[in-house]
């Protein structure tokens, strides 16, 4: 099955990004949609099997399997042995990982790792890493600010977690990032830092190198791995300071948007899984001589879950399109980078998707627990795994309130623009 699924997943689509300039990538294009549907079907199948395999609590997905399936290098260009597709396909995998509540270092290695590398200026080191990534070696983690801070009015640069002092062989790195996805398992770290000129750059580092400490942070959501990365005057290896294409701030902002979108996709998948499980349970569980799903209290509760999942899916789709369009533009723009308006469009769409979907997923998982009755409260039912996963996703890369605060500033600015 793995060989088969791999084949399906990495088949280059008829129209990759850039093939239809001016269209919304991910929108309405028949060939793209077909590809994603196949990818989704394969992923769902594979994850259901993989997550069920060891019967453990954490539903760990085999690392080699992810590489074989071709999911690690989805966005890596053809020329670097990747599938050369867009973030829309990555989003499908994120959603399916959420649906299975699967444990896999996909967020660190692919969503953020590949995402960061793809946004950088081409260098041998960066290309080498991208090429390796598609085959599953090494695992990556990207140390970004993962809380609310970068969404504040001050914007990204003030909250970049690391600082570079000196340059060349004398360069030293200091800073700290918490709740970094997949940090503890990563073999290579990419650290978002400000260089001496205040420009965001990415610094490659290796766990265990002098001055650098990586610590796992155990969390209630055992299906995820997060950790803290701390550097205290850590020497930086030659050729390990990489620059974004174009404006580093824009690159950093898009990278944060990727993280937020990825957890929104995860929450969408998780919420859909909880809705499906609840509908299934309510159809078979009988009390008072009838299936509980025939009672309006349960039926209408499920209806509400469907409504919010439908709305969330729309928002996640829009955000994915916006990010895919901006990423294509970023890739196509070369050194010129990307326009501010495009970055804002991504941030608006992502803030909507993240704030709505990640809050909705907690509500849906909670409702699922309620409508499952006592069974839903058992460890065995697994509902708690989704509730905890949704809770982590809600907090990671900006709380709903922080994203809404950013949206509100935009609404105010837009209104001021209209009034002028």
């Amino acid at each position: 099955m793995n060989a088969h699924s791999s084949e399906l997943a990495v088949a280059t689509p008829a129209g990759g990004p850039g093939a239809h300039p001016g269209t919304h990538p991910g929108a309405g294009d028949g060939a793209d949609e077909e590809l994603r549907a196949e990818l989704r079907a394969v992923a769902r199948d594979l994850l259901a099997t993989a997550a069920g395999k060891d019967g453990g609590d954490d539903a760990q997905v085999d690392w080699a399997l992810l590489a074989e399936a071709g999911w690690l290098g989805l966005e890596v260009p053809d020329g670097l042995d990747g599938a050369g597709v867009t973030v829309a396909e990555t989003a499908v995998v994120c959603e399916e990982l959420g649906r299975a509540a699967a444990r896999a270092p996909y967020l660190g290695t692919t969503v953020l790792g590949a995402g960061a590398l793809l946004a950088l200026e081409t260098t041998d080191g960066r290309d080498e890493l991208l090429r390796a990534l598609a085959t599953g070696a090494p695992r990556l983690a990207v140390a970004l600010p993962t809380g609310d801070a970068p969404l504040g009015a001050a914007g990204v640069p003030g909250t970049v977690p690391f600082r570079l002092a000196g340059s060349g062989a004398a360069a030293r790195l200091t800073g700290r990032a918490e709740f970094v996805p997949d940090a503890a398992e990563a073999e290579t770290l990419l650290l978002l830092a400000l260089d001496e000129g205040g420009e965001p750059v990415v610094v490659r580092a290796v766990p265990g190198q002098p001055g650098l400490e990586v610590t796992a942070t155990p969390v209630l959501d055992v299906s995820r791995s997060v950790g803290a990365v701390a550097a205290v005057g850590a020497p930086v290896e030659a050729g390990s300071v990489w620059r974004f294409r174009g404006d580093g701030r824009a690159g950093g902002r898009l990278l944060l948007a990727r993280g937020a979108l990825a957890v929104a996709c995860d929450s969408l998948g998780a919420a859909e899984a909880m809705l499906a499980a609840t509908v299934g349970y309510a159809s078979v569980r009988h009390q008072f001589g009838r299936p509980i799903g025939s009672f309006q209290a349960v039926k209408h509760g499920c209806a509400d879950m469907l409504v919010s999942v439908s709305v969330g899916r729309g928002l996640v789709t829009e955000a994915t399109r916006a990010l895919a369009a901006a990423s294509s533009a970023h890739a196509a723009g070369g050194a010129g980078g990307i326009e501010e308006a495009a970055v804002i469009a991504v941030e608006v769409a992502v803030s909507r998707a993240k704030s709505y979907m990640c809050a909705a997923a907690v509500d849906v998982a909670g409702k699922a627990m309620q409508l499952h009755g006592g069974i839903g409260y058992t460890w065995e039912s697994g509902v708690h795994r989704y509730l905890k996963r949704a809770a982590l996703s809600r907090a990671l890369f900006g709380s709903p309130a922080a994203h809404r605060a950013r949206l509100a500033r935009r609404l105010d600015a837009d209104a001021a623009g209209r009034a002028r």
Partner: protein
Amino acid sequence: MSVPRGDLAELRATVRGWCRAHVPADWRRAQTGVGGDEFVAFQQAWFQELRRAGYAVPHWPAEWGGGMSAAEQMVLYQELAAADAPRLVLAFVSIHHAAATLLTAGTDEQRRRHLPGILDGEIWVQGFSEPEAGSDLASLRTTARRDRRAGGDVFVVNGQKLWASGAAHADWCLLLARSDPAAPKRRGISYLLMDMRSPGLDVRPIRNALGDSHFCEIFLNDVEIPAENLVGPENAGWQVAQATLSAERGMTMLELAERLGNVGLRSLVDTCRRPDVTGRRPIDDTLVADRLAGFDTEIAGLRALCRDLVERHDAGTVGPADASVVKVYYSELLQRMTGFGAEIAGLGALAELAKPASSGWESGRWLLDFIGSWEWTIPGGTNEIQRTIIGERGLGLPREP
């Protein structure tokens, strides 16, 4: 969506230009608090204005004066909303339900008789609901007895209809009546076209919560309707109604979503940017800002839902509860938004006594809008009924025993 995107951009520019030239300046102020006659005159004039541009019935077949694709209609409604054009309120049933009924189930003769009339401004009303048949529409009791003896083939109708919006101004009525009392309740109903000038008809306006009287009761006392005005087979009226009720293919919801997302959200943001007596702008309060951003997000979600509904209609993949999902979400979002507007506007909202006629459901007179929002959560199957539809038809949950 088969229209190339380039053409859509051109259409968008055209409509935008047309709106700049034709949307009456300051119509909101001028239409605030007007009486029924002035409202009707304004609506009729605006309808003809749209008709001249080819924008009045874009969803009709080209041969009857329409011919826009779904993608084109989306652009049209987006631009009308963005320009804050007046809404077509009076012609709603005519151009949607009546036309859909005629186009789907009517005879050629019926179509030739009525579609041009609608374009010329004939107003239709829907005569479905009854006092004892609200959410449970199929239990309607108005009778239609077929009588072939009386100098012709007619249905003799007796009973009472309720919630007939616009009946006071209507020329024709889409009437559901029970023609076979012995049959199961969904199998004995016929669908008739009734001339509102028929003898035996009595229309009485019902004052609603806002003090308006667009809803009416229609009392039917031996009203004779020629048998040629039957739509579809006798006793198959329920099926005709079901088939045509959703014939607007999601486009009216899309238009409403665009209205909410344009003038609706803009007015709400403006309300929150206006300094209060202490000089503070509500939007600078994070509590208010958070709600505004939430509405912005929900509207984006609603628009996505509506576009998706239209596209599914177009692709023939629409699900049996998709429209219910949109209705529940739109109506409750409208209620939350207008309710929030009323809260922010505070005491001032109480002193706004009239809202502009021909405007949408979010006129910026927030308390009136809030009260009006129940006109969305109740009619056409209350939201309680819609949730049951979503649960049973959308999710396949078991029916009540």
